[in-house]
């Protein structure tokens, strides 16, 4: 049984209606996507559950400006989507294979995972690296970068996320994701995601993100600065990995020590950039 005081269960039929309930009831209302997070983590302050199942937020579309994913799409639906598998060498599909078990992926939704923004999330670091843009409703409909949204908790907790867009980059673009964990099903000890786009052999855009360190996804500008404007050769990759490991904000917790996480950061950045280099080679 969930340890909430929820007595009211509402099923709004529009995003605006869901927002109105959230706005009127404040901290007492909790949005329900797949619902797993509500069961596991809802607080006793919650008195109203707002089920988003009735909203038309379950589509995955590839448009001119990227992959647009409805917040009600489950991880399994994402994992089984050919459109998603065809996006940037299947990097999202590969990442999702390592998230939880099929039993959990059949429940968990994209909106739920972004809204909960757990520090151990595998989805968020990769999406931040991909430059994900989130469309949300909080009285008006607006689009914000996922990276900014997870840093703005008041907004994150008081909005209805409707879609996330993963932009389509230049043909010379690739991404990679790596999760370190004790078992495949368990929450990771640390994860790393990298994205790089460019022309010829030079990197013009790069986003390197580390998650579960144990804090929520963080960009690593020190590593990005090493890569920007350069070729992805072994020396640059080694320097980026070292710079990233030195700069990353890591801490101890019951899963791993901060120092171990620092080592993992170097390995993660190196392997992800090497993988991107290989993928660039495939598209050359």
């Amino acid at each position, binding site marked *: 049984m*969930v340890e909430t005081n*929820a007595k009211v269960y509402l099923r709004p039929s529009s995003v605006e209606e869901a927002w109105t309930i959230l706005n009127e009831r404040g901290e007492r209302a909790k949005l329900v996507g797949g619902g797993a997070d509500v*069961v596991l983590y809802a607080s006793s302050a919650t008195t109203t559950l707002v089920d988003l199942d009735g909203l038309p937020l379950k589509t995955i579309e590839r448009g001119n400006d990227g992959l647009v994913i409805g917040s009600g799409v489950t991880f399994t639906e994402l994992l089984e989507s050919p459109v998603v598998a065809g996006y940037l060498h299947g990097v999202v599909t590969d990442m999702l*294979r390592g998230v939880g078990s*099929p*039993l959990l992926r059949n429940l968990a939704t994209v909106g739920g995972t972004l809204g909960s923004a757990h520090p151990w999330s595998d989805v968020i670091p990769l999406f931040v690296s991909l430059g994900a843009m989130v469309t949300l409703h909080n009285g008006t409909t607006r689009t914000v970068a996922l990276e900014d949204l997870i840093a703005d908790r008041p907004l994150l907790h008081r909005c209805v996320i409707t879609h996330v867009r993963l932009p389509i980059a230049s043909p010379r673009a690739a991404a990679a994701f790596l999760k370190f964990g004790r078992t495949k099903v368990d929450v990771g000890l640390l994860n790393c995601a990298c994205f790089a786009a460019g022309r010829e052999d030079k990197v013009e855009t790069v986003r390197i993100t580390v998650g579960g360190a144990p804090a929520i996804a963080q960009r690593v500008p020190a590593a990005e600065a090493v890569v920007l404007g350069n070729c992805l050769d072994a020396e640059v990759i080694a320097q980026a990995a070292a710079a990233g490991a030195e700069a990353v904000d890591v801490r101890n917790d019951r899963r791993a020590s901060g120092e171990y996480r620092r080592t993992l950061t170097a390995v993660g950045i190196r392997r992800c950039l090497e993988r991107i280099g290989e993928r660039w080679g495939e598209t050359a």
Partner: protein
Amino acid sequence: MTITLTINGVEHSVEIDTEETLLSVLRRMGYVGVKKGCESGDCGACAVLLDGRAVNSCLVLAAKANARHVVTVEGLSEHGTLHPVQQAFLDSGAVQCGYCTPGMVISAVDLLSRNPDPTREEIAEAISGNLCRCTGYTKQIDAIAEAAKRMRSSDDD
């Protein structure tokens, strides 16, 4: 609140607490093949099919099952004949204490409904959310592979 859902092909209207889980509702209705294990989505003993997909019923708010179809392990046999996955578990000696078995069988049924000829790796992935504390997973994987073979063979007939 009252929800209406179909369990093993039979429609029910049930009075539930707003915060109650599907696991809790199913067990108090007598579907005790749905096992209560960790209650945190880790062990898979409580797995049921919700609209054809295997889920941890301990993580599903019962209210979300409104107007949906649930299949528990009790609903798999037909006219007294075990489902091929259940029969293969028996024949392969894939059952020890049996506590994980209903959830394991449910995950296997979900897999085989979408992938009739899975590799051993795909079977292992499909039951990765079902923990067995008695032993390893070799016999269960054998059983699911055998069930897949029998189901393909029966489809060919």
